[in-house]
């Protein structure tokens, strides 16, 4: 057995910072088969336990290795509705690959890139499996078209339900279209195509519907005859620091910056939405979102710098993202915290006052608490600041739907068994329940809720058990 994984070809950093094309080229057939043959086909595969949707990993890898691509795609499809997306953005090192036995002595099998290869192959070949049960004429409403909503909708459609997805924005996909940049997750080629496969199962999509404003959950159930509702509205509300100068021109949330760039395609000259083209951009935070914002800024021609109050060890972003960011010239100012944003006479950002930090005793989160070091105030020269401090669920649906309870952080409370909220017939999952998490966790929550909804419909005698 080869200990090291087949390397993945990537665009050179010097080249890729000048475009928005995908950084990773993925495997070609030869490379994929070679990597697939590194899998030991474990009898008790640990990797499967690490995958939140429990893809039969050894099976699809074997099928890929043996050249039975259709079977490999079907195996993925049994557990995941978005394999081309997950193969690209799952934090595999903590999930499937983190558990892979080969990783003990060598490097784990590159499950993510193999998954991507199979899904991309099927899209390119136009191979699809649209098997589904005949319609049972039961209407279910899904709110939000992020990974949670899409997965729930797809699973219910396969069971024969008549599903309508209501999406607030003008494009489906949630964070997949407005947050994660083109260079990590191509929108037309991957996201749109994978969503199309789902809609081909007979799911209806209504964009431009903000549940809680355009229509209420109550209206949907009482007036439009939806027998159950799934809330997958995500955690899209950005936070700010509350420091002086934060409302200056040139200070924005990562959500605003990334939405302009990704959803509105502001980086393309044939699209109308403007985006701030700072020359010296500071991103506050060090999560995946911060990395995406900084790497977008680099591509828009800026010098990009991350300011983070803890040390390298605590950086929450995936290792691969940090590595890519540094390769692309993103500067890291660690153990540094903003105090104030300096504003010029026209109201635009002209700098940021920061202070150096040191790490003290562990705090409630178990991480060492950052403490300010006296006398270390300094000014970072910049013309734009992007706040990437995390997000919380939008309160709109919970506040307009009687009977739904939330916790202190605005996350919707559910029964962990079946995904049901405190109101009968209304289910929820994904970031709206957990706060910002991951694509695959949102998908697994969507799956669980689909099963929960089905069980409830069976219990009510509306559909026969299958």
């Amino acid at each position: 057995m080869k200990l090291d994984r087949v390397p993945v070809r990537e665009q050179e950093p010097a080249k890729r910072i000048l475009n928005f094309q995908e950084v990773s080229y993925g495997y070609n057939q030869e490379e994929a088969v070679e990597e697939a043959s590194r899998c030991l086909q474990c009898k008790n595969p640990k990797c499967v336990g690490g995958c939140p949707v429990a893809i039969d990993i050894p099976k699809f890898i074997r099928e890929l290795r043996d050249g039975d691509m259709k079977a490999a795609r079907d195996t993925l499809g049994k557990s995941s509705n978005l394999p081309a997306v997950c193969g690209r953005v799952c934090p595999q090192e903590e999930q499937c690959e983190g558990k892979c036995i080969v990783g003990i002595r060598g490097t784990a099998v590159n499950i993510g890139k193999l998954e991507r290869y199979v899904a991309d192959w099927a899209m390119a070949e136009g191979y699809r499996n649209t098997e589904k049960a005949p319609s049972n004429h039961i209407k279910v409403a899904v709110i939000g078209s992020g990974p949670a909503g899409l997965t729930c909708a797809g699973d219910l459609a396969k069971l024969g339900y008549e599903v309508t997805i209501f999406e607030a924005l003008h494009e489906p996909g949630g964070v997949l279209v407005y947050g994660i940049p083109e260079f990590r997750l191509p929108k037309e080629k991957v996201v749109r195509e994978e969503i199309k496969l789902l809609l081909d199962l007979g799911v209806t999509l209504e964009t431009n519907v903000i549940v809680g404003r355009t229509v209420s959950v109550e209206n949907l159930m009482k007036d439009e005859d939806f027998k159950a509702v799934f809330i997958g509205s995500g955690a899209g509300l950005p936070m700010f620091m509350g420091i002086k100068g934060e409302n200056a021109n040139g200070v924005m949330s990562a959500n605003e910056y990334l939405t302009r760039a990704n959803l509105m395609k502001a980086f393309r000259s044939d699209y109308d939405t403007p985006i701030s083209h700072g020359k010296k951009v500071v991103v506050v935070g060090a999560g995946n979102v911060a990395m995406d914002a900084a790497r977008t800024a680099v591509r828009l021609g800026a010098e990009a710098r991350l300011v983070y109050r803890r040390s390298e060890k605590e950086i929450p972003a995936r290792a691969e993202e940090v590595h890519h960011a540094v390769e692309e010239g993103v500067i890291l100012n660690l153990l540094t915290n903003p105090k104030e944003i300096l504003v010029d006479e026209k109201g635009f950002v002209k700098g940021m006052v920061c202070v150096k930090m040191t790490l003290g005793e562990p705090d409630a989160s178990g991480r060492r608490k950052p403490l300010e070091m006296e006398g270390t105030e300094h000014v970072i020269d910049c013309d734009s600041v992007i706040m990437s401090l995390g997000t919380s669920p939008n309160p709109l649906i919970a506040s307009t739907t009687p009977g739904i309870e939330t916790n202190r952080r605005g996350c919707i409370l559910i029964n962990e068994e079946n995904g049901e909220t405190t109101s009968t017939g209304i289910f929820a999952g994904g970031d709206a329940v957990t706060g910002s998490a991951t694509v695959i966790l949102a998908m697994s929550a969507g799956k669980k809720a689909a099963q929960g909804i089905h069980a409830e419909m069976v219990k009510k005698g509306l559909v026969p058990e299958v």
Partner: protein
Amino acid sequence: MYKIIRKKELVSQIYLMDIEAPRVAKNANPGQFVIVKVDEVGERIPLTICDYHREEGTVTIVFQTLGMSTKKLAALEEGDYIRDFVGPLGNPSEVVMDSVEHLAGKKIVFVAGGVGTAPVYPQVKMLKEKGIDVDVIIGTKSKSTLIFEEEFNQVAKNLYVCTDDGSYGFQGLVTDRLKKLMEEEGKAYDLCVAIGPMIMMKFVSRLTASYKLKTIVSLNPIMVDGTGMCGACRVTVGSEVKFACVDGPEFDAHLIDFDEAMRRQSMFKTAEGKKAIQMEQAAVHAEGELCELGELQK
């Protein structure tokens, strides 16, 4: 896709459109707005709901052509389609939605400026339907730019038109007219609602503060999503930062930091015409980049 049922040029560069959007029409109330994206490549722009017909399923918008997006919209004709039309967004006007008992006997003056005249109309209309009479002051450049005069004559108790050039009605600013009403014509108000350009709202607010007259304004900061997701629309109200799209758009005028709001509104002014920015960019980037971006666009 949302069909344009009716289009009318009210005066030069100000257009009215009825858009077929049944879901929006069904739930719309005065004070709320929509976001319009004209076509695939368009930006999302907010426009106030100026009227709605629940049965016909239409929503009326009135807009002034300023830049790319409003010009694109104005170029469409009856029977054409708008790609995206989402709403109703923001909160309904609190004043108008208030109970009749609460409103009875209240003396209210509306101050409207420019294209902001149109969104005042559904508010005054609904109050009239509730049996509440109000005064309306409209400010505009000249007689030829005045809109909605007839409509207001139907629903307002008194209508006071002001023109900058004196070609019609009172010559002068809305603030002058309001002051005159209160100082010389014996009017006493309990509430003022001002909707128009930020600068007008700022000066109305400054005037009414000196009279301790409670004033509501409808803010129009730059927006992207209109659902609380981006924070582009944030404004300082008292000591708090609010998102105008979900917390507003109406706020207590005397708590608003208008100077900040005006600065933020002009953020992309220097930049509109992304072209301008791109020219600038070309200087920063290697030539290769522009070719690459060009490739992507194909």
